[in-house]
């Protein structure tokens, strides 16, 4: 299906910070052929003095930037926090809010529990004013071993278990449903065929066969290809579940499936303002390897189709690598910079590291060159053997931006029962510096025509002493606007997250906001991370 965007043409609306995480803000350009000053048409004879005149970007490349990892940031001080995965972080009206998934230690104590391992998880909640000092509220929702807890969902609070949960705020929903949960739900020891027949009217045949598990038979072989271990609880049925809340604390679980898809590990969702639809990112499988899929719906309670796979590991990765998680976010304030921090799972050594992928529409994704951006720490450190990103990207102080991560001392699949494991942390970048447009020598490029608000332009850039950046503004005919030409441009030499662009000392763009314009750059030994009109 085509993305129902309102159009796909120039000028491109820019509002808020814009990042160079793909080529959307670099005009592809063209090459013209000229005899002297005269352009020669494609179907005309070529005079002997015909020369090419490329009007195309050159000397630039994209390079994903590696984050600094900081952690653990949230203490493990409750008995239900035996394992610890940070799922969602939100900067919500001045407060950092975190929802994290725990497997309580009674799962490892040999107790007979009504939930299978992995589906008796609980969702706990904490909040903070600075992202480092956290409050864990004592809530009455679900006591554990006689104590009040900060558990807000899962076990008896959920009609159908929970696994791989994420939380999002739905700006267009009624107040009672302002917050939503999405996760993989499960039920054990039920008649799978009866369950399937019950939901046939709702989903037709569009049910993932992997949702119906029993030992032996076809399912065992299927899992063998996938690399899973072949030891599963009998007669499990899985689906995508949801819950609604007015405040992110009090949740009402939806008993019916939203979709019948086997999406174990982090499932994410958001309300897409442009599409006027909910968009979810799920785990899918392609020839025995984990991938990321995407699905959309107008009704959160009913997703009409299972996901289309939209991201797989590149062929340059190891043949046993999987895309384990998606960690899909929109860059804050941008509205249209879709990012994922997918963890590539290396079966080779049972570890994960997170990469950066970008998209202009959330459907078509590119791996940003530069390798992993969230890397493991030293062996033995809290993140020394395994690390993956959770959902969310939030400001940290005034100058930094952070993605929540879960780090592990041990490899991903072992050991999980010997001692508490999993620690939350931050992957931190300087604000806007997720990816650099790098100029190793000299380079030039121009943006497409932009439609902006404001009267000044600032750059997020790093230019060393011998380097320089100059900026020119061009009209729709790609002609320099008088007063804003390269000749008028002040040389920019700085390492700044927010450096004003000036022409003969003046930053004011006057009335140019009323007309589409292109921004052209001349650069030498520079890194450019983003720009913003204000």
């Amino acid at each position, binding site marked *: 299906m085509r993305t129902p965007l309102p159009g796909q043409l120039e000028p491109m609306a820019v509002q808020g910070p814009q990042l160079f995480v793909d080529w959307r803000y670099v005009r592809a350009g063209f090459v013209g052929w000229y005899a002297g000053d005269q352009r020669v048409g494609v179907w005309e004879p070529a005079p002997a003095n015909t020369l090419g005149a*490329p009007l195309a970007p050159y000397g630039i490349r994209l390079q994903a930037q590696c984050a600094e990892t900081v952690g653990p940031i949230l203490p493990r001080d409750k008995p239900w926090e035996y394992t610890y995965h940070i799922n969602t972080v939100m900067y919500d009206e001045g407060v950092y809010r975190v929802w994290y998934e725990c497997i309580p230690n009674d799962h490892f104590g040999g107790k007979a529990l009504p939930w299978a391992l992995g589906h008796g998880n609980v969702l706990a909640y904490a909040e903070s004013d600075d992202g480092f000092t956290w409050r864990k509220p004592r809530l009455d929702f679900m006591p554990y071993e006689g104590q009040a807890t900060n558990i807000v969902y899962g076990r008896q609070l959920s009609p159908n278990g929970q696994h791989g949960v994420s939380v999002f705020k739905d700006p267009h929903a009624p107040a009672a449903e302002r917050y939503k949960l999405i996760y993989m739900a499960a039920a054990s020891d039920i008649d799978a065929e009866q369950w399937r027949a019950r939901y046939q009217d709702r989903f037709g045949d569009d049910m993932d066969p992997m949702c119906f598990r029993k030992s032996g038979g076809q399912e065992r072989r299927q899992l063998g290809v996938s690399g899973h271990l072949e030891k599963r609880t009998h007669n499990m049925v899985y689906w995508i579940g949801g819950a609604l809340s007015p405040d992110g604390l009090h949740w009402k679980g939806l008993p019916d499936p939203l979709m019948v898809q086997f999406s174990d590990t982090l499932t994410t969702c958001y309300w897409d303002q442009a599409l006027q639809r909910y968009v979810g990112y799920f785990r899918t499988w392609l020839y025995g390897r984990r991938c990321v899929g995407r699905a959309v719906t107008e009704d959160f309670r009913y997703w009409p189709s299972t996901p289309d*796979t939209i991201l797989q590991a590149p062929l340059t990765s190891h043949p046993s690598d999987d895309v384990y998680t998606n960690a899909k976010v929109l860059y804050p304030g941008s509205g249209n910079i879709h990012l994922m921090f997918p963890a590539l799972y290396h079966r080779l050594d049972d570890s994960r590291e997170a990469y950066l992928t970008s998209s202009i529409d959330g459907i078509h994704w590119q791996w940003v060159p530069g390798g992993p951006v969230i890397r493991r720490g030293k062996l033995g450190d809290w993140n020394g053997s395994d690390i993956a990103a959770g959902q969310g990207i939030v400001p940290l102080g005034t100058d930094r931006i952070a993605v929540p991560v879960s780090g592990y001392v041990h490899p991903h699949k072992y050991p*999980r029962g010997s001692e508490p494991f999993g620690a939350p942390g931050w992957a931190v970048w300087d604000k806007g510096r997720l990816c650099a447009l790098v100029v190793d020598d000299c380079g030039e490029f121009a943006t497409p025509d932009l439609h902006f608000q404001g009267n000044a332009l600032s750059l997020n850039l790093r230019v060393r002493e011998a380097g320089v950046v100059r900026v020119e503004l061009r009209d729709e005919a790609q002609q320099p606007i008088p007063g804003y030409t390269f000749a008028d441009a002040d040389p920019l030499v700085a390492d700044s997250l927010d450096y004003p662009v000036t022409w003969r000392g003046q930053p004011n763009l006057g009335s140019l906001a009323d007309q589409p314009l292109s921004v052209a750059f001349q650069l030498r030994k520079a890194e450019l991370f983003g720009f913003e009109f204000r």
Partner: protein
Amino acid sequence: MSSTQPSGEPYRLAGRRLPFVNWYYVRPGRFGWYDAAGNDVTVSGNLDAAAAHYRAVDRPTGIRLMAQPAVRQGPILQPERPFEKIVTLNTVIQTEAGFQAWGRCQTADGQKFFAYYTSEDGRQWRRPHVGLIDYAGNRANHFIEPNGGSVFFDPAGPPDERYKSLAEAYFSEAQFAAYLRRRPGDFEHKALRTDVQPGNYWWHGGNICGARGWVSPDGQRWTEIDEPLVVTHTDTQVIGYYDVHMGKYVVYFRDWLVGERANTDAEYTPAAWIGVGRRAIGRAESSDFRNFPLPDLILTPRLDQRPNQVLYTNCKTVFPGAPDQHLLFPAIWDMGDDTTTIDLASSSDGRMWNWAPGTPVFATGPAGAWDGGAIFAHPNLLELPNGDFALPYTGYDVPHKYPRGQFTYATGYALWPHGRLMALEAPERGEFATVAVLPPAQRLVLNTITQRAGFVQVEAARLDGQPIPGRSFAEAVPIVGDQPRAAVRWHGQEELGLAAGEAVILRFRMERASLFFVEFL
């Protein structure tokens, strides 16, 4: 959308070959953490960290994929008849009987015709007297009724529509109106090219851009479908095929990756978006050849390519002998120098694509050569009688947008000797296992090359992973040297020793070797 069919082993093979153009046939492997007694304690284990050890089964190691560069050959078709000035091939189809080709002929007096060719070996081309088109008062020629730019054979089509053809076209307002009556609102806004003057070029009947279709009983007499198959801005190569497995037609289009237009009062100029958009590849599928939905964008320029490089054409084809392994050979147009290279992408379902490491596989020739300006590949990837793979391409003597008043062009082959298109390489020591497949035959040959101290060994196992008695590594005869068709042997045995309908897993040990494909005989 998830397939409602069960996934997993054993895989079906659509042909006799098992190529390595992606990781589809390479088992990702599994592993576990095991305690001293050999118990699996993965995930749920509660021992100390050092009390369990990682043990992998069929974990691929020491291998990588690498596309191979093609060898240039051409022109492979030269003007022969007195009236021929420029002759090219746009589509070549390979059948058991030989080769059929469709192309164009520009005559010495400046006329342009569609033309039909046949060949037994893919090298010597005949011009059958089709007898359909009068030229210079004579029908003894190979000119045919007009068709589009690409042709495919439709095994499911009725006898009078056994061949089908597709091309970009510009339709009239009347044709568009008829289309809209059938499909209200189902068009792409970019396709409304009011800036195009109808009749300016031979393919500009109007100014509504879309895909045109033709049908034919024999590939010579063509009937044009009046209305667009879909109204989308597909302004270069359009290629289709009938997918036997899905029972649907699949078409690959020129598509565009462009940003979202602001909500603005600024005047909309048709085609202005071309300046900022990047050419890309789209795909649509349909049960009805006369109606395709708007294509989905399935391949866009990579972020590690230069920002002025775009995907100009798609050249969709399949791996010879493995029709379920889909290939694209897009022409990458570099607007920095107006030349092109040919890249390679692969897919196991035609929807999700991966770029091949090592790409591009072919480049524009040296300046001054017949193909020294720009090159564009055409379907299909052929297997010549000597085992070489050949991809037809058109070479131009000047860059793509250079003034074309005096330009010349011709057809060549990008050749991969011995069918060595893409290698699974073990630069040092490597191991991997395939997924289980249902073999179409009991004997195997490998297309492989090893260094002097290198080798390849094969073990055959059943679906449960256990080696078939007598077909283990211990009995495997090492394969050494440059071997396009090396028989796999185990102490003199060549048969796999499987019961009918039984699946097989193949395990490989490689030392300084490249493996190109496996073939069941």
